[in-house]
């Protein structure tokens, strides 16, 4: 087993997202420095750490809670405004909150998919988007997704009553929950030299 094979084996232990971005560079580095026991163990430890504490930027719990509350409040307002006067009277009821949660889930997913595509395109082009660009894209697509969701709810099946549309786009649309399970694995498998232009 050659040194490159061992490195590839060790890199296979890393999360696909990380491997996709840095595997070629690490391989090139090890080709120059050599691979001893110390370097091998360091790579192994790096894989464990990367699974435990991912390097990607994550908001703190406080920030996450603040953004979640703001987004949910927006969804409640949008649900109350767009779902007609009949809903206004029960805006504080569990039904309205469930409706808002459903809107929020759909908007998140609709906004998340184009951002994931952008990230993938950036990685393939060798120019990954920055955390700041990702955040701006998420915000932009979030607003667009909210508009698209409401337009769709307003025009979908004109023959249906407001209540039926509410049921369809309310908690009945929770099949969307299944989608995120597939998203983290939607990544190109690692192949050596995949990032080099030559």
């Amino acid at each position, binding site marked *: 087993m050659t040194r490159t094979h061992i490195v590839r084996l060790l890199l296979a232990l890393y999360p696909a997202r990380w491997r996709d971005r840095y595997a070629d560079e690490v391989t090139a580095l090890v080709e120059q*420095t050599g691979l001893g026991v110390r370097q091998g163990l360091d790579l192994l430890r790096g894989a464990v750490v990367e699974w435990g504490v991912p*390097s990607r930027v994550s908001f703190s719990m406080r920030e996450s809670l603040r953004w979640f509350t703001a987004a949910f409040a927006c969804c409640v307002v949008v649900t109350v405004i767009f779902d007609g006067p009949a809903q206004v009277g029960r805006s504080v009821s569990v039904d309205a909150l469930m409706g808002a949660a459903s809107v929020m889930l759909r908007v998140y997913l609709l906004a998340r998919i184009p951002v994931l595509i952008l990230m993938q395109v950036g990685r393939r082009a060798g120019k990954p988007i920055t955390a700041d660009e990702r955040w701006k894209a998420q915000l932009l697509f979030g607003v667009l997704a909210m508009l698209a969701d409401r337009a769709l709810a307003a025009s979908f099946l004109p023959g249906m009553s407001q209540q039926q549309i509410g049921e369809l786009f309310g908690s009945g649309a929770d099949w969307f929950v299944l989608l995120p399970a597939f998203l983290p694995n939607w990544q190109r498998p690692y192949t050596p030299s995949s990032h080099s232009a030559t």
Partner: protein
Amino acid sequence: MKKNHDELQDLGRFSEPALLILISLADGPKHGYAMTQDIEQVSGQKLGPGTLYGGIARLEARGWIEPLPTDDRRRPYRLTGAGHRVLKHRLESLKAVAKIGAQRLADA
């Protein structure tokens, strides 16, 4: 007295390798191998590939360093404006701590 928040400390166990990487990039762009050589020369520490790229990934995710376009597998990185600010702040903190430490040693 409210002190300025040291953002580099948020990296926890990666704050030390991250500081070394930032210092290494302070005088210009470098790829991984050049960074390990430079860091070893400056600090005497030889960062392993997992530690080095664990630090690079965290610094890049926070926008403190950025990769430069290249056709080579050895991608160079450079310090961003935000990275420069974070490094400067961290070095000033270390300088203040070192000064107090030296003062106390002298007084003892």
